[in-house]
């Protein structure tokens, strides 16, 4: 079966190369049949990649350990869900996922544009084929996911326990879909530049792809944060880790792109800027894929030392050189059709928002690559920590949220301060009220940045509600519809606009969560014996009793042993029980005794969180199993060749011993307000994005009409 997979990859590479050659030749010679052939070759690449993906996935499901990848990343005991997802937890497998997604996206966009964009599409086909060819070459040359083992082991190593978390398994495909999705607008931007068609056609054709990529990337980032919060055992959701930053940077620049293309569509301005933005987004997406694999920056997420760093750098260099060269050589064509009429216009504010977003990206990039920069300048590798990021990002984030509120209500071309005041009077009043209430009834003033952020959030939310209300009221007076119906129709008819409002509201809610949970968090680390208590933020936490479980841990990750605790949390009349635990996984290390092996593998925190709309209570435990060291070593000596059943009995006895005579355990308790709103806000953003991306009935009608007229044109030219 591995042979089939390898063959698929090899044929796919040849087909992708053919697609490049055929489309370029077709575009230059004007022979449409070659263009069509090139496009269909991409469909073939997609088919071949899907087959290869299927072969590898079935090997994981069958636990076929003759595949090196399966032996490394899976085992017989691994739960089925994690067998499926173990494919992309390995470097080679994740490359296969990347190229499969890329070929599917390419196929979709090329199929949808097969009758339009005749000048641009062939070049875009060549670019997409080129990207696919690069990834296929990487796999065939250096990281073949279909490598086989001459002597397959009886059982695999198993999936890294840290990755056994539902969010972690959905998070990589989401991120990849985001990264990959941005290659579509990139390819069409390059196509438009090569074909000297710098109008808004390529934007209209691929805008939706950019939006979908943006939604996926955003969802991926949110899921990554959730994983960090609930699995890593430190209780935070963002640490400015290089790999986190690598996913945030293309998202920020992609956000800038989604805004500034509106200016090009409406006013024919910012063409150079838009082309540069999408090239930058795609380069950053490649960089994100590369950073995880290169090991050049210290990060807890990185794959181990890798063999494909140089190849990636060469490819990224090529992409940058190609994009920059093309944009510069087409500068005369990219001149604006209009001038900025006034600084008091929506265009100007879009530009400002772009500068803030790109500025944010540059700050994060500087911080992320600082170890390399400082090594180049001073000769020593130094790095900047989260406080540095917080200090620089906070002011930019505040400006960004302010713009989130102002931007949507501005008029194109020019507006007067009086008109602006008419729209902003109510939101400003609401913001002032919020400020007074916050000062009077809460201690929000302890952190002035958070206080400012809360006010801005109130501002944005009022602006959005006011817009929704005004639009709905206007529609009601015209049509006499009921409130909900008018609101639904209004949104349905102007999906981009109202979807955008929803996204803005979601971002505000997200920042509410970030500001509140980062400034007003209470955390305590304590060591307790059963029966002892401690206080944190007015909560009284009591360690009621230890737990020791064999198999069947609460998360369903397949951990053989898990030690934990039952804790009572009380505040006022409220009472609830938390059960954090720690899973222990076995290792195959032959230098250890049979029983030690069961305890000495990876261990992961299974935190327990009491989610609440106003406050989350988070607890993790680190049991001290030092007291079991001696009995474990005795058991190693006595039962060196014990069968599985005997081992199970011994482990059960050890667990019983821990329960009966528990040593003190280390606990971490975190009480953070409004943290759930980060993910609620993220959900609203995704929802808004989907509303904006969903084709409206009018657009569908337009497409049908343009297809029809294209066909009529074809018939006429034939006649």
């Amino acid at each position: 079966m591995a042979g089939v997979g390898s063959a698929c990859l090899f044929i796919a590479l040849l087909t992708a190369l053919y697609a490049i050659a055929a489309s370029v030749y077709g575009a230059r010679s004007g022979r449409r049949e070659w263009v069509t052939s090139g496009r269909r070759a991409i469909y073939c690449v997609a088919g071949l990649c899907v087959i290869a993906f299927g072969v590898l996935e079935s090997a994981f499901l069958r636990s076929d350990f003759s595949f090196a990848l399966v032996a490394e990343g899976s085992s017989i005991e691994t739960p089925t869900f994690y067998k499926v997802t173990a494919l992309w937890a390995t470097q080679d497998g994740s490359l296969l996922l990347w190229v499969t997604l890329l070929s599917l996206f390419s196929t979709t966009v090329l199929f949808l544009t097969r009758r339009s964009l005749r000048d641009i599409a062939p070049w875009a086909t060549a670019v997409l084929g080129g990207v696919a060819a690069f990834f296929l070459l990487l796999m065939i040359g250096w990281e073949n996911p279909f490598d086989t083992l001459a002597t397959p082991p009886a059982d695999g190593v198993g999936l890294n326990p840290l990755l056994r978390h539902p969010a972690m398994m959905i998070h990589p495909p989401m991120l990849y879909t985001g990264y990959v999705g941005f290659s579509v607008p990139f390819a069409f931007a390059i196509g438009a530049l090569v074909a000297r068609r710098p109008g808004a056609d390529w934007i209209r054709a691929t805008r939706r792809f950019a939006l979908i990529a943006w939604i996926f990337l955003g969802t991926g980032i949110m899921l990554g944060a959730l994983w960090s919060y609930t699995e890593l055992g430190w209780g935070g959701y963002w640490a400015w880790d290089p790999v986190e930053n690598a996913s945030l940077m293309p998202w920020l620049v992609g956000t800038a792109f989604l805004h500034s293309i509106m200016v090009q569509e409406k006013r024919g301005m910012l063409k150079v800027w838009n082309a540069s933005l999408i090239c930058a987004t795609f380069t950053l997406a490649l960089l994100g894929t590369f950073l995880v694999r290169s090991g050049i920056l210290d990060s807890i997420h990185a794959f181990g030392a890798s063999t494909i760093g140089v190849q990636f750098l060469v490819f990224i260099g090529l992409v940058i050189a190609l994009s920059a060269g093309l944009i510069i050589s087409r500068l005369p064509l990219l001149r604006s059709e209009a001038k900025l009429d006034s600084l008091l216009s929506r265009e100007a504010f879009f530009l400002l928002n772009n500068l803030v977003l790109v500025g944010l990206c540059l700050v994060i990039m500087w911080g992320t690559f600082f170890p390399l920069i400082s090594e180049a300048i001073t000769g020593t590798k130094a790095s900047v920590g989260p406080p540095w990021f917080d200090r620089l990002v906070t002011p930019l984030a505040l400006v960004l949220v302010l713009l989130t509120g102002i931007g949507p209500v501005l008029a194109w071309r020019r507006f007067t301060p009086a008109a602006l005041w008419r729209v902003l009077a109510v939101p400003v009043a609401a913001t002032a009220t919020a400020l007074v209430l916050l000062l009077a009834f809460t201690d929000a003033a302890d952190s002035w940045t958070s206080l400012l952020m809360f006010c801005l959030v109130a501002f944005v939310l009022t602006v959005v509600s006011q817009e929704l209300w005004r639009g709905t009221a206007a529609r009601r007076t015209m049509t006499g519809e009921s409130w909900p119906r008018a609101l639904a129709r209004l949104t349905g008819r102007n999906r981009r606009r109202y979807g955008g409002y929803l996204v803005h509201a979601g971002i505000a809610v997200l920042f509410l969560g970030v500001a509140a949970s980062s400034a007003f968090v209470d955390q305590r680390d304590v060591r307790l014996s059963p029966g002892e208590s401690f206080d944190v933020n007015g909560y009284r936490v009591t360690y009621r009793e230890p737990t020791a479980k064999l198999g069947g841990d609460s998360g369903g990750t397949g951990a053989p042993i898990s030690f934990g605790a039952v804790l009572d949390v009380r505040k006022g009349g409220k009472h609830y029980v938390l059960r954090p635990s720690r899973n222990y996984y076995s290792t195959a290390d032959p230098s250890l005794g049979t029983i030690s092996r069961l305890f000495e593998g990876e261990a992961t925190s299974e935190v327990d969180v009491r989610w609440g709309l106003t406050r989350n209570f988070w607890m993790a435990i680190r049991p001290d199993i030092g007291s079991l060291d001696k009995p474990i070593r005795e058991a190693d000596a006595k039962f060196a060749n014990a069968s599985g059943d005997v081992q199970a009995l011994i482990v059960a006895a050890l667990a019983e011993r821990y329960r009966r005579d528990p040593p003190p355990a280390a606990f971490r308790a975190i009480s953070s307000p409004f943290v759930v709103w980060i993910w609620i806000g993220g959900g609203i953003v995704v929802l808004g994005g989907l509303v904006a991306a969903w084709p409206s009935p009018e657009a569908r009608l337009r497409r049908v009409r343009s297809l029809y007229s294209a066909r009529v044109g074809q018939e006429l030219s034939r006649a």
Partner: protein
Amino acid sequence: MDPSRKRKVRLVVALTAAVLLATALIYTSFSASTEASKPSEIKPGRSYELTGKVVNGSIRHDGDDLRFRVRDRDGTASVPVSYTGVVPDPFRDGREVIVSGELEHGTFVAERDSLVTKCPSKFTKDEQSS
């Protein structure tokens, strides 16, 4: 003001803002950064970000303190570390770690919660051979 002059003013304002931001970026990053150093390189009197591997069999729990030794990635020079706070899940013998702190009386006293353990890859070939 005539349009071309207005444009020039805008350009100057934008460029000034960019230069200011860049200066702030460079200044704050160099002043706030901590040096990453190997155990064989650190000296008392300033703070470092210590990187290296945990020496096999050196991990001891001492009340709330965690004590272990970190050695050069490619050498044998090592330094004892005293640490309090959260221990990342993947922390154990032989793992690569990063921890911030200062050398005091021959012991590297780490800042609370500053320990980062590099994930030993997602179990790739390279990891097992090393």
